[in-house]
């Protein structure tokens, strides 16, 4: 075990899989000599050379489209989109090509590849650098969407993604990249895609969340326990497609109160999907309406107001009070 940040854990996952599997090629902007703008691919260029760690021209559609072609012909491309706001340039190749190749070839062609994308706010970045767009992709059958919130999960999930037979969108929370360290095994291991993590046991209320807000939610839950004796169960989804419905429903049936916290804008978000699933499968277990604490329905705002815009402690506390008072 070694103490690692998310950046280090991802770097190690890439390195160990690349050592074992020559089919893996990394493609992206500034990922080579520069080691990525967040240094996630640091030292990999030196170690594996420019045939396997490729600094591409600035062309997202080409990066993803070429990866589809490579994957279909036996390679295992890991493509990076530098910031999530730039993913739209590659939209066709991602949702209409990568996601559908298996279906549109009647199962005879596939595109096993990973698309790594830093996302999320709270780092005072310029416009179009901080968006959370998971729900845009969750609406595209054929893609898996993985969103780790800790170094341990990041490494295990990325290795699982690299070994997955389908295209996996691997979203990395920028705010948490270096926010803390945790014990991570040096050796390789996988964390199952599609399985949520029950981060905290509780009886009174379930909070379902993923990505950067996980840490805010943990802090809030701790305070409600120590200050008011309210026990909050936290589910870190880890994967938003596919959703771990079983874990969600079991928790709702136990606590009867649900809040969903996500950074992406509220309308049409994954939170809406989860609320719908709960109402289909466990409506009569609920003792109060399901509340969502999410980004407001606005473009991601400028630095001066982003902390207030994000699902912060104050907003989550207000939701907890409202749900428990029902």
């Amino acid at each position, binding site marked *: 075990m070694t103490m690692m940040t998310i950046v280090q854990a991802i770097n190690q996952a890439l390195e160990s899989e690349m050592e074992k599997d020559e089919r893996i090629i990394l493609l992206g902007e500034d990922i080579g000599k520069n080691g990525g703008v967040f240094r996630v691919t640091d030292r990999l260029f030196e170690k594996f050379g420019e045939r396997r760690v490729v600094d591409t021209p600035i062309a997202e559609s080409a990066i993803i489209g070429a990866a589809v072609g490579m994957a279909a012909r036996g390679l295992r491309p890991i493509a990076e989109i530098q910031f999530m706001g730039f993913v739209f340039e590659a939209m066709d190749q991602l949702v209409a090509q990568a996601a559908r190749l298996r279906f549109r070839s009647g199962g005879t062609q596939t595109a096993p590849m990973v698309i790594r994308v830093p996302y999320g706010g709270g780092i005072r970045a310029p416009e179009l650098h901080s968006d959370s767009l998971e729900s845009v992709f969750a609406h595209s059958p054929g893609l898996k969407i993985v969103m780790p919130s800790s170094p341990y999960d990041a490494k295990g999930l990325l290795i699982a993604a690299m070994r997955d037979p389908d295209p996996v969108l691997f979203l990395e929370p920028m705010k948490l990249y270096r926010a803390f360290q945790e014990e991570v095994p040096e050796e390789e291991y996988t964390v199952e895609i599609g399985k949520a993590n029950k981060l905290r046991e509780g009886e009174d209320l379930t909070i379902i969340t993923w990505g950067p807000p996980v840490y805010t939610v943990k802090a809030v839950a701790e305070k409600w326990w120590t200050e008011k004796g309210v026990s909050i169960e936290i589910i870190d989804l880890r994967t938003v497609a596919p959703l771990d419905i079983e874990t969600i429903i079991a928790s709702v049936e136990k606590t009867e109160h649900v809040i969903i916290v996500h950074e992406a804008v509220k309308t049409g978000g994954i939170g809406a999907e989860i609320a719908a699933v709960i109402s289909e499968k466990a409506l009569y277990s609920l003792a109060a309406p399901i509340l969502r604490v999410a980004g407001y*329905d606005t473009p991601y*705002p400028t630095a001066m107001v982003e902390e207030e815009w994000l699902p912060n402690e104050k907003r*989550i506390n207000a939701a907890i009070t409202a749900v428990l008072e029902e």
Partner: protein
Amino acid sequence: MWIEQNQLDIKTIKYIDEKGKALQTDISLSEQQLLEMYKGMVKARVFDVRAMKLQRQGRIGTYAPLQGQEAAQIGSAYATGEKDWIYPSYREIGVSIMKGMPMERLFMYTMGHLEGLAQHAANVFPVQIIIGAQYLHAVGGAWASQYQKEDSVAVAYIGDGGTSEGDFHEALNFAGVYKLPIVFVVQNNQWAISVPFEKQTASKTIAQKALAYGITGVRVDGNDVVAMYMTMKQAIEKAKAGEPVLIEAVTFRQGPHTTADDPTKYRLPDEESEWGEKDPLVRIKKYLTESGSWNEEKDQQLFDEMAELVTQAFTKAQSEEPSQLTDVFEHIYKEKTPQLVEQQVQAEGEKRP
């Protein structure tokens, strides 16, 4: 016949050499015009140096410096008319300043003010973050000018790296097909973050890319403000006659890509000092001094004057009321949707989220 790279002999237009000596006789710029351009360059330089410092002190946010590219920006912007439209990327601070953007607005933008997004200069599109997207907006703008029989051109800016995006190629293609009044300016500053020009494209020059789309291309010494101005002037004339032009301005980004970037990771100090000697401000200053219209004393005065203006702009930006959360609900639709109205009320302090 095979068409090969080597058949193309592309020369770089230059009017003033590194020592400040004129290489051409047809410089149709008055002394006053030359001085105005130099003043614009100094203003941009002083703003840029200050912005870098303020970012390091944590007083403004991420900033993308333009140092080294003042001639390419000021020369091209100075040649545009009041009716012409500019479509900038994040690095065209010099162009914005030349087109009359108040400097306090530029500071407010980097400070993360919502109000900093509002454009306060004539005919300048909002700063573009997505590489290449503005090239297509410029095509549409030029199309509108043509359709409405306006006497104006669209001027689109991009970097060398941006020429790899599909949007760049689609824009040039449309411009050629529809014979649009547009000038495409590429500031080839040698680097796209950490990727050098030769890893960005296998073509020898950017200028030659115009040929594939049936439009005219030209390569200019981008550190020569006179060459930039003269070329731009002609390009605008051509564009107005329905002949779109692609200008490659060969220049160099002297600083980091942005304040979040560390160029020592990917480039050698040699390259920086080599280009440092070709500094665009030094060249025009030498030329002006040579012709007798400029001296050290006036120069110092100009720098001081600009420093004072920049200080005033920053003070003004700082004294602006900070943005409030409630402001984010404005400017999304002409009229707020019911959802936004509800969320705004919640944000302003209701109990339920």
